[in-house]
């Protein structure tokens, strides 16, 4: 796994994007899979920047690698902010009329639909969020 350590600032998003894209390219991911991980980085790293450390900022690590057979790309986000499990967020009912739909919650829903797996644990004072996706997957 390759890892980047960075501050939880929205200004850091492009640097995280560039790191993730370069690593996924090196792993041979399809263009679609790269686009889906990009969406995930914007949502999940963005959420960490906005909420994990309240008004302040703190350290975040983002790791990218490969595991399993068939090979899956793996991304792990770690922050030591407030414990928060995004997988417990309410799943929006996309069948509801637009007037009745909550505006939030779409991001996590999208990522869950796009990824093969998403897991969360609170370990050693850190929020650890892990995403995997078959590198050759076509939706």
């Amino acid at each position, binding site marked *: 796994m390759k890892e980047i350590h960075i501050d939880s600032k929205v200004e850091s998003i492009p640097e995280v994007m560039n790191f993730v894209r370069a690593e996924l390219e090196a792993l041979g991911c399809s263009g679609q899979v790269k686009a889906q991980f990009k*969406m995930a980085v914007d949502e999940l790293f963005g959420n960490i920047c906005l909420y994990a450390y309240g008004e302040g900022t703190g350290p975040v690590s983002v790791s990218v690698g490969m595991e399993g057979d068939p090979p899956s790309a793996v991304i792990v986000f770690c922050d030591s902010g407030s414990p928060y499990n995004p997988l417990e967020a309410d799943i929006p009912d996309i069948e509801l009329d637009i007037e009745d739909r909550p505006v939030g919650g779409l991001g996590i829903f*999208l990522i869950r639909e796009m990824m093969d797996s998403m897991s969360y644990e609170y370990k050693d004072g850190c929020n650890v969020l892990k995403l995997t996706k078959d590198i050759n997957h076509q939706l």
Partner: protein
Amino acid sequence: MDLELTAKRDGKEFTISLKGEVNTLTGPKLKELIEAELPDTDILVLDFEGCDFVSSAGLRILVNAFKVLKKRGGQMKLINIGNNFREVLNITGLDTVFGIT
């Protein structure tokens, strides 16, 4: 990647052409422009010719604008949608809500 917005007004129709990406970082720029122009707008046209990445931060902005317009009988049109953005709209069911061409 940054987001460039080019705006054009024709009476009550307001068109924004997007170039770049709508994400957590660039979203506020689009939000500010839409919010400033929405009171004078009945038809909001968003041209995605130069933009095929819209994260959930961008979707929230679009949903909010759509709700405001719909409430007073206005409409929102998304044109020149690329494949990545279309996939996002399909997954979230917003493809059947927004006017897409």
